[in-house]
């Protein structure tokens, strides 16, 4: 007989009907960043004193972590900006670990020091550190990250993680300066212990998440891969079509006028200033809860359920997205709509084009067909997902 049972976090099955109120919390420790990436949707300068002075202080973040632990939370994702810019990062990290949470760290890796690498080696985060990579060569990385000398610091950070055998995974963004680096990136991937995933690329960038910089939005629009270019990257993956069969069978269907058919509001992402968002992307001030005035529990149990009931009213949305069977495959959602248009329910043409290009390639629609006009969509999904 064994008395202890060893499980991966996702294997947990709580007694029927129960489960932690919150399984993971996302906390943005700062919007400041030591990079200035040409495509970034959130960053502020690392020396932005105004942003710095408004950030949650150490005691506030610790209290937030305690509230999350009391709700049963098993993991925290620290993100940013660059979370390692916070002087209290190591303190917050250990505080979360001592509460019995796993930590997922999103970082560009430039600020990994020998002390931090030793800390991660001795007290492992419990989840791989996720490093964003902006190029494999100094010229490409520094140009994409907007900082001279950034690549050298990034690479030193990676060497430290490897030297201390810290578990990490990497993802990249396809940008004009680093387009020629994909082969090197994919080769490097095979040399990283514990990195067993397919290459992960961002290429369909979101606009500024706070709608704060129209000039940068224009530049981001120009960096986005077109639907055709996106398809040529997706098709490189040998598992793309098979993974889509499973995905489409499970997650695609029209959602009517219900705006939040996703998981938004079942969990939360707390921004750098202590506002609880329904998800990482949605920063519309009308949908956030100030945690200086309300508890995390109140946000999750009272505010978010009410917000989840919001219905779409935009006629264009009702005529298209509400009836569209690509919903799920298409990334159109309240957060993306807000970033693009400042409303929660306006179709995003760029995403619409991407979804149609994928659907066409997968054989779900034919040339020039509009997904929202397809009547026999259930049959098409069944046929595709059963192949």
């Amino acid at each position: 007989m064994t008395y202890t049972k060893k499980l991966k976090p996702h294997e947990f099955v709580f007694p029927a009907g129960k489960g932690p109120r919150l399984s993971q919390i996302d906390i943005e420790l700062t919007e400041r960043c030591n990079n200035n990436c040409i495509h970034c949707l959130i960053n502020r300068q690392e020396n932005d004193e105004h942003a710095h002075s408004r950030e949650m202080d150490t005691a506030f973040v610790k209290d937030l972590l305690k509230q999350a632990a009391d709700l049963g939370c098993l993991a925290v994702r620290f993100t940013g900006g660059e979370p390692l810019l916070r002087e209290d990062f190591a303190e917050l990290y250990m505080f979360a670990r001592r509460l019995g949470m796993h930590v997922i760290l999103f970082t560009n890796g430039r600020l990994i020091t020998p002390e931090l690498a030793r800390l991660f080696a001795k007290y492992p985060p419990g989840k791989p550190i996720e490093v964003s990579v902006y190029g494999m060569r100094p010229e490409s990385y520094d140009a994409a990250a907007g900082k001279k000398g950034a690549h050298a610091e990034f690479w030193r950070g990676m060497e430290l993680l490897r030297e201390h055998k810290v578990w990490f995974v990497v993802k990249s963004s396809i940008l004009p300066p680093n387009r020629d680096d994909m082969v090197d990136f994919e080769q490097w991937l095979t040399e990283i212990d514990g990195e067993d995933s397919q290459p992960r690329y961002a290429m369909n960038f979101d606009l500024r998440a706070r709608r704060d910089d129209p000039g940068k939005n224009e530049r981001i629009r120009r960096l986005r891969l077109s639907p055709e270019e996106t398809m040529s990257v997706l098709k490189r993956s040998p598992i793309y079509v098979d993974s889509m069969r499973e995905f489409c069978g499970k997650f695609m269907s029209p959602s009517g006028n219900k705006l939040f058919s996703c998981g938004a509001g079942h969990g939360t992402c707390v921004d750098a200033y202590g506002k609880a968002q329904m998800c990482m992307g949605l920063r519309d001030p009308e949908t956030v809860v100030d945690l200086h005035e309300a508890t995390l529990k109140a946000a999750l149990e009272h505010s978010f359920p009410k917000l989840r009931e919001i219905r779409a009213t935009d006629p264009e949305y009702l005529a298209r997205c509400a009836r569209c069977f690509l919903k799920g495959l298409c990334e159109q959602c309240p957060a993306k709509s807000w970033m693009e248009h400042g409303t929660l329910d306006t179709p995003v043409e760029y995403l619409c084009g991407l979804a149609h290009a994928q659907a066409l390639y997968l054989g779900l629609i034919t040339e020039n067909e509009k997904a929202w006009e397809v009547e026999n969509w259930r049959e098409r999904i069944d046929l595709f997902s059963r192949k």
Partner: protein
Amino acid sequence: MDDVTFDMVCFPSEDIVAREIEGELIIVPLVAGIGDTDDELYTLNETGKAIWSRLDGKRTLRAISEELATEFNAPLEEVGKDLSGLMNELIRRKMILVQSV
């Protein structure tokens, strides 16, 4: 492994965090090398939970078995077998420490 004796007094190691979530006792390794991989968590079965809550660094394993035998109206021998089984697992995984023998 049969190093467990009933004179032992045991207590949870500081290298793990034990949490109770929705009635489940979950042990989260804090320090490298406790689990076989970094992302593991552990749960205890019902017997394990009843024993764990008594590992306070004060009671001997004998006292704990007697308490459990009375509380659950079970034969002392059976409780003792469960107790040493669990102790072996927890000591091997460095989740509890032995204070004195």
